[in-house]
């Protein structure tokens, strides 16, 4: 198809895009995660070696991203379910989305220390 402009959807469309992107991301992460966990069947040493790399600052940052993705997907998933089963859901979908985003921001701020704290300690010491 020849280039047209991007469709200027509103909240509903962009939240869906985000939901889809996060869902796919999580799926691929899960795939890898099961593979690495499977190493416990192979050799504890290898497992610990892999897990050790998880403790590097870069991967911590990725981990933070993963938490962000899962949290958004989970919260927005609940919103989608509310739209599906609550008769007023479609009417309040935007309000619910902003609630989801608000909650998500709160939780992500809350997750900074637990998730990134370790990395900070590694980088800058205690």
């Amino acid at each position: 198809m020849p280039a047209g402009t991007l469709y200027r959807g509103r909240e509903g469309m962009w939240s869906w895009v985000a939901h889809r992107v996060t869902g796919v991301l999580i799926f691929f992460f899960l795939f890898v995660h099961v593979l690495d966990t499977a190493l416990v069947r192979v050799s504890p040493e290898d497992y610990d070696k892999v897990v050790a790399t998880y403790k590097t600052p870069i991967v911590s940052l990725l981990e933070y991203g993963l938490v962000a993705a899962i949290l958004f997907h989970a919260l927005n998933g609940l919103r989608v379910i509310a739209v599906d089963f609550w008769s007023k859901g479609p009417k309040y979908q935007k309000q619910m989305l902003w609630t989801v985003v608000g909650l998500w921001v709160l939780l992500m701020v809350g997750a900074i220390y637990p998730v990134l704290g370790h990395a900070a300690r590694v980088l800058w010491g205690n």
Partner: protein
Amino acid sequence: MSTPTLEKHSSALDAAEDSASHLITVTLRIRRFNPEVSDEAVWVDYLLDIDPKERVLDALHKVKWEMDGTLTFRRSCAHGVCGSDAMRINGRNRLACKTLIKDLNPDKPITVEPIKGLTVLKDLIVDMDPFFQAYRDVMPFLITKGNEPTRERLQSPEDRARFDDTTKCILCAACTSACPVFWNDGQYFGPAAIVNAHRFIFDSRDEGGEQRLEILNDKDGVWRCRTTFNCTDACPRGIEVTKAIQEVKRALITRRF
């Protein structure tokens, strides 16, 4: 009866009655495609002076009538009831005849392009046949059993209100062609067909609901909707399209309608 309103003119009324025209210059950036000339669609800019109280349809007419007669688009009623002129204005589906220039940002070019997901035949004209085919596929007509009554079938005002929203559809395709699922897969029935199925499923006089639900239970039916709300945002008749779709989904699960 007296009218208190006539003494104190509201500013809105004053503005509406202002007959002096205040022309502004706008750029209309239209996506042109004419297969008789080229296989490529191109953007063409038209500069015109127009009163911001006029519609985008008036601007298109100005282009067609005064600048370039080859510009092609559909239109008829010019006030949002016939559903001819759904197009993408500044990136969103709207009716050109219900979009006033002043409601767009006239400082930037106003982009106008055909609706997505249907074959572009020329300029802003798309092939509507697949759209109407999906509509016909949901059996959009009253199905009844037994003898016809001599007078009207009775229906309480509450039962009538149950499906009022979806009777407003003018089949303009703004919703279906705003749906991301439909853009990628024209097999999806699309919101407009579901809206029109809803109109009958929830009509207390109709007895074909089961059949229609079965059709929409199809792999290209309601379950493909991802609740993106583009349809609801696009509908020029203000139909709560996504809500109607959700009601059909729930009716399919509970088999109560």
